[in-house]
């Protein structure tokens, strides 16, 4: 039984700290066995979640925190990003690829997140802010030599909990 490796970060709502989370996300993806390009995809997706949390959740208020949990699992990675904002309805977000929205200078974060990981789930936690959970499975056979999972991990059939 292989246990998950978890890193937790708490940052103030400053855009200069986005790179810190991005770097950590790529590193954890590497530990989970993702190849370089897929690890960058994870980093970019988590980066977008953190930008959303800082800009739209915490309204750039540096006294509000963004909590990030990154978990390397035997065949996948999971990231949770939680802000301290009032929440929003992600389904009400305009399609940035449609009509006049193409020329907007913002509004593409969720599109990028959904493109670069396998699932993106939003949950509003009453009184505690918005939480977005991103998951990406590692494609079978795409394993870096330095982070190859153990036989026990391979034998679990890829089932994640």
């Amino acid at each position, binding site marked *: 039984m292989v246990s998950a490796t978890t890193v937790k970060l708490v940052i103030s709502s400053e855009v200069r700290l986005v790179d810190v989370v991005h770097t950590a996300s790529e590193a954890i993806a590497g530990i989970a066995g993702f190849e370089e390009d897929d690890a*960058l995809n994870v980093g970019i997706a988590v980066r977008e979640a953190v930008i959303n949390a800082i800009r739209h959740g915490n309204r750039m208020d540096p006294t509000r925190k963004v909590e990030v949990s990154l978990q390397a699992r035997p065949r996948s990675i999971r990231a949770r990003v939680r802000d301290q904002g009032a929440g929003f309805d992600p389904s009400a977000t305009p399609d940035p690829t449609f009509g006049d929205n193409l020329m907007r200078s913002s509004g593409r974060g969720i599109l*990028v997140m959904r493109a670069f990981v396998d699932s993106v789930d939003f949950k509003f936690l009453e009184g505690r802010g918005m939480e977005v959970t991103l998951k990406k499975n590692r494609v079978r056979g795409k394993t870096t030599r330095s982070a190859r999972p153990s036989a026990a991990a391979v034998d679990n059939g890829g089932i994640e909990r």
Partner: protein
Amino acid sequence: MKTTVRTVGQVSVVDLSGKITIGEGDVVLRDKVLELLDGGHSKILLSLEKVSYMDSAGIGELVACFKKAREKGGTVKLLKPSGKVEDLLQLTKLWEVFEIFDEEQPAVASF
């Protein structure tokens, strides 16, 4: 992100390297394009060959630069996006908004 500007004919070719991301590359890009437009250089070719990736803020800044140039009677075109940058331009459908070139010579000649 770093920028260097070359003048080829009447076109300002801006060689970008690094990443175009929130709070860093996006600001550098904006400042450089505004500087060129304010200096009367309205034909701008952004060379993306050495840009490793962008985030949504960087993508938004590309659009803002395109709009700003158009307001001032100018044009911003893109040269040699590759890898993640190309993926993002296709994902966001900005591929349909910008004129994008693989080679510098025809790009310069297109202005």
